[in-house]
């Protein structure tokens, strides 16, 4: 059951992150002031992909809630990082972000740590 929850969480998170980053880049820079937050909320309602992204996030979140209930926090949170490489690869392919050598090496190091954490 633990791994079913981890799988649901990871796939939903990857989908959500991609949709979010894609749509927010299209929306342009956002600010953190009171007006910025109001504008941010309006952006969320106006953009379809953001709503879809939030639905994915909700799915991932409920899986995470069930996971932290039964598994230790120091397992559940690192396990969520399993989405890491999937997302980095998809960010390169779909969002056309450039992944440099240092960045790729750093990401791989993080992944090694995450695998070790999950064991």
């Amino acid at each position, binding site marked *: 059951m633990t791994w079913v929850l981890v799988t649901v969480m990871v796939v939903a998170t990857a989908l959500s*992150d*991609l949709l*979010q*980053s894609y749509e*927010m*880049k*299209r*929306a*342009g*820079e*956002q*600010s*953190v002031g009171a007006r*910025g*937050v109001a504008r*941010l909320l309006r952006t*969320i309602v106006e953009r379809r992909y953001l709503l879809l992204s939030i639905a994915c*996030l909700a799915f991932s*979140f*409920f899986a995470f*809630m*069930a996971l*932290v*209930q*039964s598994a*230790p*926090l*120091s397992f*559940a*949170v*690192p396990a969520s*990082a399993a989405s*890491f490489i999937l*997302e*980095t690869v998809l*960010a*390169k392919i779909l*969002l*056309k*972000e*450039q*992944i*440099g050598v*240092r*960045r790729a*090496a*750093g*990401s*791989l*190091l*993080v*992944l*090694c*740590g*995450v*695998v*070790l*954490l999950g*064991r």
Partner: protein
Amino acid sequence: MPPSTRAIRTYLLLLLFLALRAFGNLCLAWGTKHLPEKLAADPLVYLRSMMDPFVALGIAMLIVALLARLALLSVADLSFVLPMTAIGYVLAALLGRFFLHEAVSPQRWLAVTLIFGGAALVSSTPQSTTSPMKDSK
């Protein structure tokens, strides 16, 4: 905006996001572990669990963290934001160890160190490699 102001704002948003998410997760873990029923596929159980003050507080903190992250993603690449989020795993291990009294093995601490190294390496690369897309709206 000058590049330095932009960088400072990016890192402030990152700090806000990490703190809210780490303590949000802690509240959520504390709350769900003390619930009378087990969370599964039943949506009603989730709704009832949100009546618990710790679960509710945790969710509120995570919602604000999500908003901070949305703002962060508008100024930085997903492949910059994601590796920096790795610091959150270190925070989770620390909070789990000290507040929830979880046993964290030496292997796990080694993993935490690896994650730190990776995150530090990635943070020395450019934050944004794509130019903002033209809005079609």
